């Protein structure tokens, strides 16, 4: 079972060699996008793509015919997701200044590439555990932006019917497991969700992505 940590700086093959015997190798069908997971509507014909993805630096060094990391269409999809995140957060900031959104609001401006880059790798059944800075994670995972914004306004049409608020976005349909207020709170939760995947030994490999940074690590180091 793969975790986000495995996708480090080195170029990664999309059919990684498993380091544990319990892992079932990932098998992508011919029509599945090889870069982007199934959290977005796959409307492109990707059969012309080559099998191995290499990093941009490798491409420069090799001097052979350049192999694209992503296609132009995929790039536009990713860009759209990032622009959505930025526009959404800018609107949140406006609404907060106008006091239409209240309580705590944590903006994700500047980090859109992280959300898009990681979450768009995932499939529908993969889960994401986020922090209080979770609006854009919800958007990247596929929660409709209208539902997220309604939640911030405390409306019943929000993804948590107005009960959760900015810091507690949940979606069973999109496997977004929250939205946690405390530093590092989601780390054990994400680990548990990943454990479920391993426990069920499901035919499809699934992945749990826990998103945290900085201070969260300190909290977890002591746990």
């Amino acid at each position, binding site marked *: 079972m793969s975790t986000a940590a495995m996708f480090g700086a080195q170029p990664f093959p999309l059919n990684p060699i498993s380091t544990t015997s319990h892992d079932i190798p990932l098998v992508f069908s011919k029509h599945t996008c090889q870069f982007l997971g199934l959290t977005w509507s796959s409307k492109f014909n990707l059969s012309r793509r080559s099998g191995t993805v290499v990093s941009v630096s490798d491409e420069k060094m090799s001097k052979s015919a350049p192999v694209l990391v992503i296609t132009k269409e995929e790039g536009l999809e990713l860009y759209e997701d990032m622009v959505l995140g930025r526009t959404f957060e800018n609107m949140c900031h406006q609404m907060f200044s106008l006091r239409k959104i209240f*309580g705590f609001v944590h903006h994700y401006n500047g980090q859109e590439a992280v959300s898009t880059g990681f979450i768009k790798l995932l499939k529908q059944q993969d889960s994401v555990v986020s922090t209080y800075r979770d609006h854009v994670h919800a958007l990247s995972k596929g929660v409709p932006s209208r539902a997220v914004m309604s939640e911030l306004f405390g409306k019943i049409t929000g993804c948590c019917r107005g*009960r959760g608020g900015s810091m507690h976005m949940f979606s069973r349909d999109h496997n977004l497991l929250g939205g946690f*207020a405390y530093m590092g709170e989601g780390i054990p939760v994400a680990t548990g969700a990943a454990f479920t995947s391993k426990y069920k030994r499901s035919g499809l490999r699934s992945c749990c992505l826990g998103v945290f940074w900085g201070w969260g690590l300190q909290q977890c180091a002591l746990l």
Partner: protein
Amino acid sequence: MLGIVRQKMLERSSKKIRPAVSMLRSYSSAAKQMTVREALNSALHEEMSADSKVFLIGEEVGEYQGAYKITKGLLDKYGPDRVLDTPITEAGFTGIAVGAAYYGLKPVVEFMTFNFSMQAIDHIINSAAKSNYMSAGKISVPIVFRGPNGAAAGVGAQHSQCYAAWYAACPGLKVLTPYNSEDARGLLKAAIRDPDPVVFLENELLYGESFPTSDEVLDSSFCLPIGKAKIERKGKHVTIAAYSKMVGYSLQAAEILEKDGIDAEVINLRSIRPLDRSTINDSVRKTNRLVTVEEAFPQHGVGAEICACVVEESFAYLDAPVERIAGADVPMPYAANLERMALPQVGDIVRAAKRACYRSVP
């Protein structure tokens, strides 16, 4: 002497119809207006200057001057050796503080909100509260855990819980809940001077509220006794027992009830553990009716404990069942209208008092 004069003036003034609670407090021309924030800050300044063993530890207490500016100016005055900014690890710095207390220092630990104290609750309960007993009195833990407790505004389920009942259930802890500036100053000083662990539950929404404080309160030796409640408003028809922000709501409710001919006695509990059972029971024996008010979840709450202690000691004096007003039995919702419905409002207290007086059908 000043206290007796103050009480008599309060009795006289409480008989008049008043449009707002603040009028009730303008009884002394010498009283200085002081916010709860200033009261806490001044108490910390005085205790730190009086005893070099007192030190502060918590997130943002130093450079940032306190997340809610309670510790403003303390880093500049006492230096980084005595005002310690910590990383975001409640379990870590609480444990460190408890260890320091074992060894003779007097830490004041600030939690940004008491919700975060759950990350450190093992140290509060097991390391601090139980140590004196487990060591047969040999280890004393003169530590204070302080910070805002209870609901703020629109901060959601994980930032809005009241922990009074949780901590008050544990032997070995003292739990204090100040309401106004006098309480804040007197109880915090008492807590810092106390040789046992004290959980000091403030309220974020009260920090900016201003109350008149007499010269006696402003004196640096001023201290309130732990375990004594205060009768904020004397009455004879129904007792309303509350703590923290709910004391303010209860006083407002008492004004409304007065118009309907119900003279309510409002008790500011101040100390949840030890609970001032004698003040509560004396009041119930006088009025024969009781309403408890708290912001916290209803089950196993402070109101439940007060009800039990009154039933144990003054059952024959009760003319009506005890009315218990508490927060709704749900995690705090985010939406503003739901949040309002999840917390007790002045109208709820008024209706409960009327029910206790059989003036309305429940």
